[in-house]
């Protein structure tokens, strides 16, 4: 079977990002999964054990002192080196902010095809097929990369639930040096404090989102309370983000995050087409809105025409009673 590389992102202090398990599983669907990671010299054994637990059959550690000083350049060099050494049929990367930049540059560097933002992957022999969910889930499009080079694929974060079986990987370490090619320089990194033990919005099984109908940042706490009562992630409409109730990273929709949870609860959200584009593939949708004509009711499985400030506290109460 051919090899499929999974590029593993790490934090500034070398911790493996939470997309690793999904990417290794995606690579395992395409071939023998090889985790590729960039690390400061000496970190290989720890990483190898961690990535093996997630299913990597091989771990390729590119050692570089420049990690964290140049934007994506060491990562790009690592994948170029791993690709040259291993001749994979596919290279999967997270469709994250860094991942897109790495994958885009890599596709040009290796002169090969790029499939972006896929929600699943499949191999027919050595040919890689990416499955895309387009226009807010309205279409499913399958595409392939014909021709020789490895298919480069970015995978939507949280889209693949499959997990690979744990393995005892072989470890390869290779020093890399970033060439003279110009790269942007990292001046400072601010990791956002993890606010709570609330689930992450991407890939969450339940999402409670609030809109402009919440009226203020203080009132938005009601959304968080319901989310916590359900063990759900918190999302928001763009209007709520623009009004400063929540950070942009919570935005669901056309220009925000696309979610596909089991349950989506929309509070005080009108359901503009651009918001619906980010959540309409949810299994079950519940909406509470004062306006009986709000478009969100057109897609809600259970709609309540009512005031969030009376309905939601009652709902939280009812959930509490049931939990007892």
């Amino acid at each position: 079977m051919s090899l499929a590389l999974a590029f593993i992102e790490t934090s500034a202090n070398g911790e493996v990002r939470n997309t690793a398990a999904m990417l290794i599983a995606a690579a395992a669907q395409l071939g023998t999964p090889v985790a590729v990671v960039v690390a400061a010299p000496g970190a290989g054994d720890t990483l190898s054990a961690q990535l093996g637990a997630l299913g990597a059959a091989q771990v390729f550690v590119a050692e570089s002192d420049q990690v964290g000083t140049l934007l994506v350049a060491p990562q790009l060099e690592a994948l170029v080196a791993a690709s040259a050494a291993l001749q994979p049929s596919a290279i999967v990367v997270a469709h994250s902010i860094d991942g897109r930049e790495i994958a885009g540059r890599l596709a040009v560097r290796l002169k090969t095809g790029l499939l972006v933002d896929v929600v699943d992957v499949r191999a027919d022999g050595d040919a890689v097929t990416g499955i895309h969910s387009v226009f807010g889930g309205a279409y499913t499009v399958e595409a392939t990369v014909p021709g020789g080079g490895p298919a480069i694929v970015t995978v939507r974060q949280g889209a693949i639930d499959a997990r690979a079986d744990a393995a005892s990987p072989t470890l390869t370490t290779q020093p890399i040096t970033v060439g003279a090619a110009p790269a942007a320089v990292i001046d400072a990194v601010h990791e956002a404090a993890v606010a709570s033990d609330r689930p992450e919005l991407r890939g969450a099984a339940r999402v409670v989102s609030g809109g402009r109908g919440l009226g203020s940042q203080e009132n938005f706490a009601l959304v968080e309370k319901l989310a916590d009562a359900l063990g759900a992630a918190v999302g928001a409409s763009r209007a709520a983000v623009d009004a400063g109730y929540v950070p942009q990273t919570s935005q669901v929709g056309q220009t925000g995050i696309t979610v596909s949870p089991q349950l989506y609860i929309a509070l005080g959200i009108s359901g503009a087409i651009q918001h619906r584009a980010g959540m309409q593939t949810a299994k079950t949708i519940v909406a509470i809105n004062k306006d009986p004509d709000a478009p969100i009711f057109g897609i809600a499985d259970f709609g309540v025409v009512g005031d969030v400030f009376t309905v939601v506290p009652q709902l939280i109460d009812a959930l509490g009673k049931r939990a007892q």
Partner: protein
Amino acid sequence: MKIIVLVKQVPDTWGERKLTKATGQLDRSASDAVIDEIDERALEVALQYKDAQDAEVIALSMGPSSVTEMLRKSLAMGADSALHVQDDALSGSDLSRTAAVLAAAIAKSGFDIVIAGNEATDGRGGVIPAMIAEHLGTPSMTYLDSVAITSDGVSGVRADEHGTVAVHAALPAVISITEASAEPRFPNFRGIMKAKKKPLDVWSLADLGLDDSGFAPSTVVVNTTERPARTAGTKNIDEGNAGNEIAEFLAAGRLI
């Protein structure tokens, strides 16, 4: 300072967007075409620099003849000139080909900085700016929430999933900006009148020294299916018990 702003024509997100099932390509007749909102913001970043400093702002787009309208709007907002790469052989181009052609146009025009939107509202790829930078051999800094351009460099704050990263690069460089950056200006009457006299050049693949033979798309759509539209379920007016009713609905569906 020569600033190139990438402008993409996209189907208006206020309408229903459709794909042609046979080819997987955009059905351009199904929706109105507009400048992608994010590219108006990219143009605004360029225009704000030009408001304060000596700069030439060029709007660049690749696409069918209808793109002219978007470029006129960019000129009306304040761009000095526009470039339109138009060639029948480019129809249905994938990311790789689009990036290669845009990079060739940028190289031919000459530039100090290229500014793009972070991702288009239709494809949502967010990879084109990095691909162009790789073709041009320049640094790239994508997804910038804020940008500061100086005569020889660019710096900014890039938001990722985990926090923010402050970055800088020497020019020439390629950047992309997010919707957290500048609110775009509206073209005024004077701008619209002036736009009519501004240069708008149309370049073919031959003008760029490219031929279509070496530009076969490197990805192929093999299948397109439409998901049935979602239908509405029940809608109840709250008469004092809706909170409890939702809890019952969730319990019945084993969602709690």
